[in-house]
């Protein structure tokens, strides 16, 4: 199984790999044919230009940010720039603000990804199984994802604003949703879930579509119940798709910014780590401190990706068509 449609060459290689599978790795390297080598060179040739562009637009700014993070540097005080080594990191990691915002970010991530996964799976099954109006169902489910986050954030904010929102009158409450931490976070999470569940379900649908119907039929013949088929056949066979869906959404959710920025401007303890980086870099123009926050955020993101890939024991590079 694979998350993309395998190209013809890929299929050929997949065949070769399958024959190789029992053989030890060094043996495989020795047996690399001319054709494989040529293919690899062609691959570099094709991907090379993009690789160079990627380096210049990502590697350079990242290196630059790491360098800046070692300075006490305020944009409005260029003369006061001084090298402080890891001082900025020490300030950040010893500041209770960082840990609180780390907690808020983690909470938002866990809640939204968990809810989105369950909802997204349900929607994916609906899309997969829909007997009629298939296209309309898929389109309807995908609509929220087509809306710009800032726009959806405003829509949710207006809906929950006590003065003119429709939510309070609907439930007969007079809660000031954006006046306290928990209700604010609830609305932020709801908006996030509403907006990105379709993305989750789309990735899961791709996984569902790749399970050969023969597997399911065989299980049926063997007398497996619907739940058993789901647990033992469907889920294990789309492990890669599940991991990709969870990983993408976790990384996205961990970098959440727009919803918070629009709805609370970070008030009432709703600030997230991206917001912290924004505040230091853009608002306070403390380039050094802000870069350090960004670097920490990037390290955390890499760490999450690493843990996911290790945890799921799926090597995406080795994924082949089923």
């Amino acid at each position, binding site marked *: 199984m694979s998350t993309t449609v395998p190209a013809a060459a890929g299929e050929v290689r997949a065949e070769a790999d399958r024959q190789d599978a029992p053989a030890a790795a060094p043996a495989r390297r020795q047996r690399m044919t001319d054709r494989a080598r040529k293919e690899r060179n062609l691959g570099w040739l094709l991907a090379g230009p993009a690789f160079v562009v990627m380096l210049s637009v990502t590697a350079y700014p990242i290196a630059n940010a790491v360098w800046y993070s070692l300075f006490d540097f305020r*944009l*409005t*005080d260029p003369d006061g720039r001084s090298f402080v080594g890891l001082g900025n990191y020490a300030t950040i990691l010893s500041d209770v603000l960082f840990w609180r915002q780390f907690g808020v970010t983690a909470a938002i991530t866990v809640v939204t990804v968990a809810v989105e996964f369950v909802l997204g799976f349900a929607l994916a099954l609906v899309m997969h199984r829909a007997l009629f109006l298939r296209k309309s169902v898929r389109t309807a489910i995908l609509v929220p994802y087509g809306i710009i986050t800032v726009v959806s954030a405003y829509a949710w904010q207006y809906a929950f604003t*006590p003065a003119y929102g429709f939510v309070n009158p609907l439930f007969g409450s007079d809660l000031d949703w*954006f006046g306290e931490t928990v209700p604010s976070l609830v609305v932020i999470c709801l908006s996030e879930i509403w907006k990105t569940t379709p993305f989750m379900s789309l990735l899961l649908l791709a996984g569902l579509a790749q399970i050969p119907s023969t597997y399911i039929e065989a299980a049926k013949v063997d007398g497996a119940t619907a739940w058993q088929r789901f647990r033992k056949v469907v889920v294990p066979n789309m492990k890669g798709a599940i991991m990709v869906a969870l990983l993408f959404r976790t990384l996205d959710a961990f970098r959440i910014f727009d919803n918070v920025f629009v709805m609370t401007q970070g*008030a*009432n303890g709703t600030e997230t780590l991206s917001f912290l980086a924004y505040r*230091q870099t853009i608002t306070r123009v403390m380039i050094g401190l802000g870069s350090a926050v960004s670097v920490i955020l990037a390290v955390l993101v890499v760490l999450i990706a690493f843990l996911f890939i290790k945890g799921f024991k799926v090597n995406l590079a080795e994924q082949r068509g089923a």
Partner: protein
Amino acid sequence: MGALGVAATVVAACGGGETSGAPELTWYINNAVQVEIADACNEEAEGAYVLKTSLLPNSAAPQREQLLRRLAAGDTTVDLLSLDPPFMAEFANAGFLRPFTAEEQEELSQGVLEGPLEQSLYEDTMFSAPFYGNTQLLWYKKSVAEEAGLDPAAAPVTWDQVIEAAEQTGTTVGVQGRRNESLMVWVNALVSSAGGSILAEDSQGAAAEDVESALDSEAGAEAARIMSTIANSDIAPAGLSTAGEEESRAAFQADDGGFMVNWPYVWTAFEAAEAAGAVEEGFRDDIAWARYPQVVEGEASATPLGGIGVSIGAYTEHEEAALEAVRCVRSPERQKQNMLTAGEPAASAEVYDDPEVQEAFPMYEAIREGLTDAAPRPISPYYGDVTGVVQQGYHPPDALDEQTTPARTADFLEAVLDGSRML
């Protein structure tokens, strides 16, 4: 306006653009209406310069961010900029603004009201020519005040009196509790009215780690007391901790609205609300205004101060022309035009003697008085951090404590400025 725009283009065309020497200036404006001021100045300049405009975002913080980044990058197109006065010191200290010479300063100060003048100076040098000022007034419903036996028009009232009157009549007091610049305006007015200040007096020009806060005082405690009293009482409009100016106005327009502190723009907004049917016809007949409430009875209130100054960017390539343009933009004539079109109160005293202005702004005397006795927000190169800390320390209003809030905010402020804590 369209015609003027065309005229400006024609003038530019006749001048032959850059080659024949008519310098092209860009003015970063904070309000689209200022395009008309630029058009009028182009007409007046008769080809001496061509003033183009570029509109900044519509709230103070992102305006500052854009200007700051442009100037930090040495942007030569920033010839003129409409600058929110609290941010001027930061720009001036960084060397992003061209200071006005002593002679220019004297010329541009003439006839300017005290408040707008004070906030245009950093270490006694003018970096922004006062263009317009702004001040908050106490707005109230005559019927409500009468029922409570309060007459703010006769003599200045205190916050405590306003609170009591609202409690008696079951009405609300509209204030800005949202965690942004509006909250800072409120805190600063309360602290200053109580005779205190947010930063210690000699903080102008001090290095960040040496700046001291004067918040941990009786004035800081009084501010916390008044804010939490309102927020924890039935007189608080719904959503107080997220209410900005427009939310306050909506609360005031509601049936149980009684009092509100807000900028003068609300008068024209009431008019529009009447026209749109949002409030009943004749709503404004019951509305009156008075000077901003006192904190200490008998001691004149320090009125909130806003406005815009026009500065010249340090990297402009057309200094002389930019200066000419500043002269035109901030001339009393253009200030009057801006007051009538944008509704922003002029910074020069003489504008208020104009019958046309007096007719459009029946509360012109209260505005002029407010601009004279105003308390500018702290003038500091680190204002951004100062306001950020105060907005955190004094928010949400219902959780403030007069014992702990001032000291905690003051400590936090000093820690942020010396770099030991983040904001």
